[in-house]
């Protein structure tokens, strides 16, 4: 126990309790302030994360709003079978994987490169300006970002198409064409988040002992050699941990931004698991089927996180847990 919050009661020999629970209650009584501080987070988890799990059983039931969760009859894995025979669901899985994969290889390195570049800026004022400009898009709501993207790519008044026309090229209906969707989604995502994501790498870079660079300088290392032989290896554990987190979320492409950008003509490449569940559950009122899709997603995601963590532990001796 950390000494700072221990009360004198610690040093008074307590009468031996019969059960382990007695001890637990005793420490809770003594450190009640710590538990009080923990409470809001616990309560939030209980209400919004654990309590809804009760409803997960509808994934295995033929759910009827009239009979309620309890009253609906069990049907085993029937919903899962339905899903795996649905082309739309399979397409959603493959779209999710493709979008995630491209973001992983295209978007994940950008914040690292930005952090390395920011770190090389030595003028204080310029550095602050660059950082502010890079961080700002993160604070813009996705609704507005989607609005900007739509306006930007609009066939008639959009900047891109105006430019294309001025060059004598044909205008492109970007947002209605499935082959453009992934590029638009990923690049606007990079624009929005890469700067902010670089903060964590920048913090890792700041944590590197400056004497390492001075020592390398005496040894005659160039700036370039210092970046590749000191900075990058030193932040590798951070990169690995963040990669693990990303891999774990490879099946979780957020639905808000996609819902704002896609349209039926681009479902072919744009419809991901979360948007599929959203349409199925909230628009189609197929709660039981949507719950089954959600469970499948969660189980696969869990396996992915555990696997990625194991790999990270083996390679970099660092993991999230």
């Amino acid at each position, binding site marked *: 126990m950390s000494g700072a919050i221990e009360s004198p009661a610690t040093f008074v020999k307590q009468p031996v309790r019969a059960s382990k629970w007695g001890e637990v209650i005793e420490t809770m009584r003594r450190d009640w302030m710590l538990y009080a501080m923990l409470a809001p987070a616990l309560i939030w988890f209980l209400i919004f994360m654990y309590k809804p799990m009760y409803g997960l059983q509808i994934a295995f039931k033929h759910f009827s709003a009239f009979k309620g969760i309890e009253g609906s009859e069990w049907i085993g894995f029937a919903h899962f079978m339905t899903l795996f025979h649905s082309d739309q669901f399979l397409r959603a899985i493959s779209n999710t994987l493709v979008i995630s994969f491209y973001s992983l290889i295209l978007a994940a390195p950008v914040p690292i490169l930005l952090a390395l570049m920011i770190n090389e800026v030595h003028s204080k004022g310029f550095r602050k300006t660059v950082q502010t400009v890079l961080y700002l898009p993160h604070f813009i709501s996705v609704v507005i970002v989607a609005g900007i993207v739509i306006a930007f790519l609009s066939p008639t008044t959009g900047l891109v198409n105006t430019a294309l026309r001025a060059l004598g090229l044909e205008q492109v209906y970007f947002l209605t064409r499935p082959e453009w969707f992934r590029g638009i989604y990923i690049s606007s995502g990079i624009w929005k988040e890469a700067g902010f994501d670089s903060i964590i790498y920048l913090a890792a870079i700041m944590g590197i*002992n400056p*004497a*390492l660079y*001075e*020592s*390398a*300088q*005496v*040894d*005659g*290392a*160039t700036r370039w*050699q210092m970046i590749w*032989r*000191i900075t990058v*290896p*030193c932040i*590798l554990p951070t990169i690995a941990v963040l990669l693990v987190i990303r891999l774990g979320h490879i099946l979780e492409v957020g639905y808000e931004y996609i819902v704002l950008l896609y349209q039926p003509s681009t479902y072919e490449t744009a419809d991901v698991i979360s948007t599929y569940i959203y349409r199925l559950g909230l628009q189609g009122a197929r709660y039981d089927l949507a719950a089954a899709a959600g469970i499948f997603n969660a189980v696969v995601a869990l396996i992915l996180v555990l696997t990625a963590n194991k790999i990270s532990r083996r390679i970099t001796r660092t993991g999230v847990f």
Partner: protein
Amino acid sequence: MAANVSLRNVAKHFGAVKVVDNISLEIEPGEFVVLVGPSGCGKSTTLRLVAGLEQISDGTISIDNRVVNNLAPKDRGVAMVFQNYALYPHLTVRDNISFGLRLGRMSKADIDAEVTRAASILELGPLLDRRPSDLSGGQRQRVAMGRAIVRNPSVFLFDEPLSNLDAKLRTQMRAEIKRLHSRLRNTVIYVTHDQLEAMTLADRIVVMRGGVIEQMGTPKELFDAPVSSFVAGFMGSPPMNLTPCSVVSNGDATSVTLGGTEKLSLPPAAREAINGTEQLTFGVRPEDIRLQPREGTQPINGLVELVEPLGGESLVHVRVGDDLFVMRAEGRTTVESDRPITLHLDMQRIYLFDRKGGRRVYHDMEATS
């Protein structure tokens, strides 16, 4: 391939703050020079100026008779060992040692030969494939030295290399550095705030204070003939007893009063040397205070405040009026706390300093040598 190092009127300021102020210092090839002084006096900055990690504001630095003011660190022929070792955590000992060599165009075989040589000098052979995190403090320090050795520098720069080690290891590494120097014979500039390290390692000690050189000389010179009360109070363990004293002239005899009550009459030479100065600091080394009278000693009375047994000897702290004196009592002493005691000061070995400015005004050199 040792080189000489010469600093002429070197200054460094950060903004308006003068950190190093007009330092001049000539270092012979193969000499082991220790910069010593209290924290913040500009030792590291001086070292970093020699290394080229800081740009000098004024003056000239030359290494091997070549002005290096505008040379990059790597072209100065120096290697530096840092206080916190500065090892690359992601590299093995072997790769740490060869880091500098691998930056250039050196062949793999040559690099391996260098690493093997350094490893054998420092007895690092069995550790070559470990990472720094698997090493003890002393081992890390040796790796840091290995990295310096493979560069075959003409000047070694050490910045408080032992300050992160525990006392026992420090003694051991001190001996190792000394052995290394007697084997390689490179020029060494070594920074420390520990006077014991300075005394044991240095051919020559440079005492710094507030960005200037207070005194330089051999360890013996600094110990026996400190130019100021600052140097006197810095060297020796425990350091010299320094206490303000008032001068009383009475016809032919001149005496000083210690602790407000205890009178000591000064030797005739001292009387001339102080030449009417009234504000003095009286200095006497712990080694020059005895429990028994001898020829040339004079007694003062005090009260034992504390007896610090160190094994073979004890340090006795004695209060005399407002002043505190520390003396060494050899062997097993019968001195006890809270008892009155008479100390016998060897008056041939006393020091007198001007209280303003701290310059030494009197010491009988012949008595010491």
